[in-house]
């Protein structure tokens, strides 16, 4: 809105840089590669037991190439949010607050993907959409809801410093709560359906392992790319707001000339210097 071309910190008009552009293209190519590997290169999961029956996850196994990496990076995101929040409270650098916020948004999306693919996968494999007895599933759902609350809190207009501080506290409390939730859910049902060690349980073909590794790599790139851009958006909006401050100050001071007429008649007070020592 304001012309800031002469401002000492000139604000770029987009969030990309040569590095992130390359990163973006590599990520996109990686996603295409992952689709090809997940659907065409890797085999379906089927094993023959000793008595000759065919068991396995069949095509549902292909969901794991998204489910597992997105779950891992959801937890990575929330860890970064927790870490960023601690550092923000400690050092009070806005930079870390923006990292925490950006990471939480990505974490919620990844966590949502994890839950969605988990539900879809559960239907053919466990024969149920949702399984309350599964510790990781329930814990992840609560983690998701806690950070949905965190984002909702951040979306409410608030004084910027107070918002950053309180959001940091919420993130830390939320992260601290995860082990407690995990323990309590585990004791609650005392059983777990989840693939304790997915990789060991499956008959790991070379292609399966390779596809999963591609999935991890692609999600790492995707996470990085999203984080950088989301962070830059947050940073730019902060910069824009601060660049607007000078203008806001000028506008605020200009109110004097328009509004003070009713108070005391007089002239050219608006041009008075900022230092008005009241006593003579």
């Amino acid at each position: 809105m304001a012309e800031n071309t002469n401002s000492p910190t000139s604000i770029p008009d987009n969030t990309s840089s040569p590095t992130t552009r390359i990163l973006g293209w590599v990520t996109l190519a990686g996603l295409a590669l992952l689709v090809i590997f997940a659907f065409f290169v890797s085999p379906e999961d089927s094993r023959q037991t000793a008595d000759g029956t065919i068991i396995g996850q069949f095509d549902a196994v292909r969901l794991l190439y998204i489910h597992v990496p997105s779950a891992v990076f959801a937890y990575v995101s929330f860890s970064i949010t927790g870490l960023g929040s601690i550092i923000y409270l400690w050092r009070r650098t806005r930079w870390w607050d923006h990292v925490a916020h950006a990471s939480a948004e990505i974490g919620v999306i990844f966590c949502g993907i994890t839950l969605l693919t988990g539900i879809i996968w559960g239907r053919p494999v466990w024969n149920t959409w949702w399984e309350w007895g599964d510790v990781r599933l329930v814990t992840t759902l609560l983690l998701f809801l806690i950070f949905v609350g965190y984002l909702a809190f951040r979306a409410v207009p608030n004084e910027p410093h107070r918002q950053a501080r309180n959001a940091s506290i919420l993130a830390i409390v939320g992260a601290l709560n995860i082990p407690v939730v995990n323990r309590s859910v585990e004791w609650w049902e005392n059983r777990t359906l989840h693939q304790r060690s997915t990789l060991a349980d499956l008959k790991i073909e070379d292609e399966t392992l390779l596809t999963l590794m591609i999935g991890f790599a692609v999600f790492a790139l995707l996470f990085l790319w999203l984080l950088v851009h989301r962070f830059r958006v947050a940073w730019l909006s902060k910069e824009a707001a601060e660049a607007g401050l000078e203008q806001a100050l000028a506008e605020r001071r200009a109110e004097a000339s328009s509004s003070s007429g009713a108070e005391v008649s007089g002239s050219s007070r608006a041009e008075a210097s900022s230092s008005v020592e009241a006593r003579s």
Partner: protein
Amino acid sequence: MSARSLVSEGFDSLKLAMDYAVSLRSAVVLLGRFPALSGADISVERGEIVVVRGANGAGKTTLLRLCAGLVALYAGEGEVLGYDLREAGSAAKDWRSRVGFLGHETRLYGDLTAKENVEFALALSGRAALSARAQRGGGLRGGGQRGRELRHSTATGSPSVAASALERLELPERLHHERVSRLSAGQQRRVALACVSVRHPELWLLDEPHASLDADGRECVDDVIAEAAAAGAAVIVVTHEQGKVFDNLRTATLAGGRFMEALP
């Protein structure tokens, strides 16, 4: 960052800040992104009453909240009662207990009586024990007595600190035990000012102390303010009224978050 340098230019630092109860130089306060104060300069000596006027939204309430240490200083400099406003953290804000703040809205508990409200303010301030000892002639060492002050303050026979503060503000005695929510706006105003006065602040920050008061009430409030100043407290009064005491006082006018001029 350039805003900070912009607003901190050209202030006169010859005077020692410690001489003043309040000294602000190019003070900027942001409420969100809005500069409620855009470079306010004011100095108030101990024992002095300053009247602050200004249109709605001129930054009067923010000025008082800044002086009470309730909002942070964004740019510029300021000291209150000798303490630097730029010091952050509640540990560095002990001085706030020496400030009395009467907000535009009264900070009273509607379901407590007038007297209970004043007693609560008194007890929070830690002055209850002192006052109780003073009333008993200062002789007794009342360590165990402190906890009972809230309930037994009237048992001593002499009127309690809270009751005398309410009497000083001319709240009829029959209303002392009335719930505040049943009092009129003007009566609530008196109770709120009594809550400030029992703390014996060194700096009084009063936002529209005359609001909804009748002529007698205004005069009474003016007297209380004048007494406080005579006892050495600094007073900043935000008001639209032309009170008895206020006509010949130093007046500063806020507009657009700055002081525009001074009337001698």
